[in-house]
């Protein structure tokens, strides 16, 4: 059946017409629908499709037509017109589902009620988009990096003035109202709120809280530069205030690298006024001011999670610097590992995809051995000062120098696979790895590590040698990749999987001590 209707002098905006056209095409029994203005050439198209009928004879360019080819057994022209009218009347609602707005402004316009914009575009354009979002009264999460510090300061000041969050630039993770953003894990909702200036550090704490049986109210990212003097911790402070005012939050966790002293003072002053318990992990920072402020300092990311859970449950808060496994089990692992190694195997290779996890490792192990790194504890331990591969190495493979022209190693495991090939050799004793799963991460990072381990083992086998590989998985059983599956595939490749990064690092420390002895 072919039929058309004409609306004299009817004007609808193009977006509405396009959406209606698409909607009508999806109705059962409809073969083709054209909705357009009655210009000669549009009518030529109608004729070409054999959809012309008498109604279109007297149409003018300023009239709207709907021409349809349909199977009467399923639908009638009256029903199509009814559908058209219905959609015209609810055009705003209809637009949200099918229409892909080409710009942020049109997206904001078409998705009424949206209150957060996630920005992941090249840095040179990101600030302008963020400003558009903030001006429209929306919170921003900016994954983009390479945004100037001046722009960051300007945007964060604007956010503070408007009472909004400006998470980022270079903000890798957040969980807002239970929705994971960018790199984030699926964790239970609960009563612990977190503000983090370090991506994988935040992820590590949230997954451990989940594993300990509690959940997160809000997880607010700030971006790595927030606690620098220039920015002044604007978003960390905004985040703390938001959590203090949030009735769902009973305990607050703060995580970042040590802030600039002036920024630290502002945060500590705010924490002193807090009417909720606050756990602070300024990774490797000074604990004294934290204690002075009445807050709880931490030894590791895992320790932060444990203390937050203890505070929430009203339990005694104690430092955790041990293992879940018994002393005997750990001793057995250490001895067994050392026994696998041959003479000449003496170096550590820590190949991290998560920057904060690498930082945690280097700060712990760096006290005991000279560790060379692209994020060294002291300038003399910079990777460039290492002769060949004769030394202990800990790398943050997510740093710019390793990601130019390729995706972040949490997304693309090839970077680490390459380092397994080039940096793991017959002098390597232990390899330490993180495996970060969850949204945004590679679909099977554990499988990729397992493959690299198998390849390295095979290579060393030819020289009559073996290898010790220790890892931890930052993730939960609710993540798309699955915690259990990830652990299983690592263990199948002979990797020792520890319950947290901190425990993996401590185990490596014990093995290295044994090897050195």
């Amino acid at each position, binding site marked *: 059946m072919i039929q058309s209707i004409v609306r004299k002098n009817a004007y609808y*905006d*193009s977006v509405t*017409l396009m959406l209606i*056209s698409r909607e009508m095409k999806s109705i059962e029994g409809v073969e083709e629908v054209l909705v357009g*203005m009655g*210009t000669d*050439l549009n009518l030529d198209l109608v004729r070409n499709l054999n959809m012309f009928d008498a109604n279109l004879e007297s149409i003018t360019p*300023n009239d709207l037509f709907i021409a349809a080819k349909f199977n009467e057994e399923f639908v009638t022209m009256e029903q199509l017109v009814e559908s058209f009218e219905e959609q015209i009347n609810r055009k705003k609602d209809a637009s949200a589902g099918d229409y892909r707005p*080409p710009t942020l402004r049109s997206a904001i316009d078409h998705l009424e009620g949206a209150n957060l914009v996630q920005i992941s575009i090249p840095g*040179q354009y990101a600030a302008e988009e963020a400003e558009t979002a903030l001006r429209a009264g929306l919170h921003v999460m900016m994954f983009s990096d390479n945004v100037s510090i001046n722009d960051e300061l300007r945007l964060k000041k604007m956010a503070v003035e408007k009472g909004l969050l400006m998470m980022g630039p270079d903000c890798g993770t957040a969980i807002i109202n239970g929705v994971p953003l960018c790199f984030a894990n699926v964790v239970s909702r609960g009563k612990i709120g977190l503000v983090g200036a370090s991506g994988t550090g935040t992820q590590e704490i949230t997954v451990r809280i989940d594993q300990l049986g509690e959940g997160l109210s809000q997880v607010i990212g700030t971006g790595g530069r927030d606690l620098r003097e220039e920015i002044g911790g604007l978003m960390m402070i905004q985040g703390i205030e938001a959590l203090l005012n949030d009735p769902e939050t009973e305990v607050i966790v703060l995580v970042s690298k040590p802030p600039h002293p002036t920024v630290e003072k502002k945060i500590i002053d705010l924490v002193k006024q807090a009417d909720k318990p606050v756990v602070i992990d300024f990774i490797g920072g000074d604990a004294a001011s934290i204690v002075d402020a009445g807050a709880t300092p931490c030894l590791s990311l895992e320790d932060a999670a444990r203390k937050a859970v203890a505070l929430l449950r009203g339990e005694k808060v104690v430092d955790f610097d041990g293992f879940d496994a018994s002393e005997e089990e750990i001793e057995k692992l250490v001895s067994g590992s050392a026994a696998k190694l041959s003479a000449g195997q003496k170096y550590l290779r820590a190949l991290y995809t998560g920057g904060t996890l690498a930082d945690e490792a280097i700060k712990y192990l760096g006290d005991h051995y000279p560790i060379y790194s692209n994020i060294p504890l002291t300038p003399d331990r910079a990777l460039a000062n290492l002769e060949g591969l004769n030394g202990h190495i800990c790398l943050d493979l997510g740093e710019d120098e390793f990601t130019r022209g390729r995706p972040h190693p949490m997304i693309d495991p090839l970077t680490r696979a390459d380092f397994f090939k080039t940096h793991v050799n017959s002098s390597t004793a232990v390899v330490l790895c993180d495996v970060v799963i969850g949204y945004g991460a590679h679909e099977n990072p554990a499988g990729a590590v397992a493959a690299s381990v198998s390849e390295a083992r095979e290579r060393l086998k030819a020289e009559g040698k073996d290898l010790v590989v220790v890892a931890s998985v930052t993730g939960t059983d609710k993540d798309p990749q699955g915690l259990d599956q990830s652990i299983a595939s690592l263990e199948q490749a002979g990797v020792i999987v520890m319950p947290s990064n901190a425990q993996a690092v401590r185990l490596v420390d014990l093995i290295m001590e044994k090897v050195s002895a």
Partner: protein
Amino acid sequence: MAGRFERTISVLQMSQDLYDFLLQRDDVVFRVHSIFRGAVNLLSPDKELATIARTDLDIMPMGMIVDLSSHAAWPFENDDSVLYGGQMEFVLPNSESRIRFRNARVWSPELAVPSGEVTCASKEMLDLIKKTLLELDSGGVASVIRFIDGDSNEPSSCTNIYARFITGDICSFLEAVEGKNWDLSLSRAELLIGFGPGLTPSCDDFLAAFILSLYYRNLWNHSDDHALLNFLHDVVDLARSRTTIVSYSMLKHASRGKASCSYLKVLDALATQNIPELHRAIERVLEFGATSGADFLFGVWCIQTIFSRWARQEECIVKKEDRI
């Protein structure tokens, strides 16, 4: 006096041509022609279209921006009368409202001659436009770019029925323009005017880009090419009866070098090789309608590609003459 009105809306910005149009008149009764969420078109008795837009839209020729948020209702109904009595305000009797433009900033809907050297668009700029269009897949005729630029030999690679139908005619038009055969170009343009989805049919947005670009190339190069200028005016004459009144107005303005702010910014960025500005202008242009912005950019890409070829040909001729 103010008490007579239920509502007073202020005009923030007004185009120079609308300002001049009103200045020459003491008493005009406009009719509300069409109402959209973001804008309202008024039609004067002599068929001039004036556009009143909210702050989130671009200002256009014969247009004004009013201080009205996107959630506030328009004080108009279709076919309402809008009175202009020479007092720098529109009076809306049906809603007892008025729109005052006493303190409005005036905006010129034309491009000034760029201060630096006017050059052809670089390959990088053309690639940026093409990449944007390929990623967008807007639903208008812009997907013809796949066929034109040799990414595909099949018109069927175009993503919608309109684009597939018109591919051949667009190619014929491009050939005629590239050959500077303006009579042939006009007969080819006739096969495009008014075609495509939308209130300003896709091919009209495409042609607007041609008309504007040719107009400014002629102006900036001081060419005074009468055959070309006649072609531009003849296309507009053809459009009078072959497309919608909104679209006809757009083409008419284009033939006089006038266009909405973002459209002009695209041309300006191309002429001055300003890539960051081009990027911003593209973003803004894409906010026009469902397909209009993309179809305009498609036209820009085509005509700028032709300009580049003309420039290469002229360079060859100069070199040849040097040798002789």
